[in-house]
């Protein structure tokens, strides 16, 4: 876009005219470059294209998820100047896309931290979205020369990693924590940096939970391939071979643990995730066993076996969802696991033994 070069190499850097933030010229979400005394800054579009949507869909299903990132640095939205607000975010492209699509009509700067392609919340927990990286990025982009004010807006979910008063002490920039959700940013900026109680609270709606389930499902399916392999081998010797009904029973338990339980989470009685998964797993298994007419003397071993192993499987998978939830505490998860894991293991082992006896003995 900007072909001519200007030279105003105030502090040793000689890259005026070149972009402060390196970017790929082929990236279609960069619509141009804005010039500042410190150099060019890529302008990000506020409209998502098909490619962005496709990319989001892919990472939701766990494809190329660890490599979906953009270069850290500073970006522009609209036509910002030295008085425009600065929003800080992570370099996970999905996070960046979610943010920029809410910024149409605004003029602002976006400071992207190097979080290794991980979203704000997880990166804050790990410390990559943290005081150190923020301070470094502010000085690297020479932000204090790009804007004349001394205020940066951080997503509230970054707070576990950043010590606001430390940042102020080291850089002179004061930190304002913005809303939890990107869709509230505009209102937040327009109301003079005021976030309502509602903007500050994490919700974790059914939709939030639903978009997280594909990844869990894919992970479980991968492990399941091993289970199928073993069952196939057993079938070579089995008196009662594993068939479609067994497959459905198993798949149902997996879906119950990875998708149904997370979806119905607040509706299922109880608090512990493993319990919730177990409860739904039991309902599923009992129903399916009954449907197949396995509650008869000849199939009792199988019925009891499945009732021991499948709900445990759902419980375990549901417990894994604590990692995706936004309200489970470390102490809580430890407590839950100490109680649940031994039961899950015992029950699974007992169940597997019963099912095998039924399959292998006449």
């Amino acid at each position, binding site marked *: 876009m900007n072909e001519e070069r200007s030279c105003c190499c105030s502090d040793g850097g000689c890259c005026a005219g070149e972009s402060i933030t390196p970017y790929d010229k082929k990236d279609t979400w960069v619509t141009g470059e804005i010039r500042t005394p410190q150099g060019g800054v890529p302008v990000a579009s506020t409209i998502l294209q098909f490619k962005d949507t496709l990319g989001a869909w892919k990472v939701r299903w766990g494809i190329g998820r660890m490599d979906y990132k953009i270069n850290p640095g500073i970006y522009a939205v609209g036509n910002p100047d030295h008085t425009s607000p600065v929003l800080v975010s992570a370099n996970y492209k999905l996070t960046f896309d979610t943010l920029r699509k809410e910024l149409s009509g605004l003029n602002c700067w976006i400071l992207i931290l190097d979080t290794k392609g991980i979203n704000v919340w997880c990166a804050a927990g790990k410390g990559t979205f943290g005081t150190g990286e923020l301070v470094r990025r502010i000085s690297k982009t020479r932000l204090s020369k790009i804007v004349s004010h001394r205020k940066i807006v951080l997503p509230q979910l970054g707070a576990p990693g950043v010590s606001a008063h430390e940042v102020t002490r080291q850089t002179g920039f004061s930190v304002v924590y913005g809303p939890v959700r990107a869709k509230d940013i505009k209102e937040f900026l327009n109301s003079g940096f005021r976030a309502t109680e509602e903007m500050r609270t994490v919700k974790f709606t059914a939709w939030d939970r639903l978009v997280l389930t594909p*990844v869990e499902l894919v992970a479980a399916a991968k492990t399941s391939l091993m289970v199928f392999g073993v069952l196939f081998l057993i079938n070579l010797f089995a008196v009662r071979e594993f068939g479609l009904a067994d497959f459905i029973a198993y798949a149902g338990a997996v879906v119950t643990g990875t998708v149904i339980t997370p979806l119905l989470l607040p509706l299922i009685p109880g608090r512990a995730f493993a319990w919730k998964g177990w409860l739904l797993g039991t309902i599923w298994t009992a129903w399916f066993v009954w449907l197949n007419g396995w509650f008869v003397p000849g199939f009792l071993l199988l019925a009891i076996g499945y009732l021991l192993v499948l709900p445990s499987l759902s419980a375990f998978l549901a417990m894994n969802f604590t990692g*995706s939830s936004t309200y489970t505490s*470390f*102490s809580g998860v430890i407590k839950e696991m100490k109680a649940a894991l031994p039961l899950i293991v015992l029950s699974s082992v007992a169940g597997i033994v019963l099912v095998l006896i039924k399959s292998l003995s006449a």
Partner: protein
Amino acid sequence: MKHKYLKNVATLCLSAEKCIGCGRCAQVCPHGVFGMNEKKARIKDKDRCMECGACARNCPENAITVDAGVGCAAAVIMGWLTGSEPSCDCSGGGGCC
């Protein structure tokens, strides 16, 4: 619909003496655990604390302590198996993001 997790496990602790009432903790907490009362912070609902550590890290007076950690079963299992601190490692497909 509000989510509820296990009761009486959170390790959150607030020292009213050190608190200068700046209100930062109430601002950063994603679950509205803190309230402000006559220029002092107050823990309103401890059971909703998810131990993210945001309040403690942002309190300029170090008035808050909490055992911050990831509330993620997979991470805890990995921690137990490898004998390391559980960390939210989002690689490998499954997990937290």
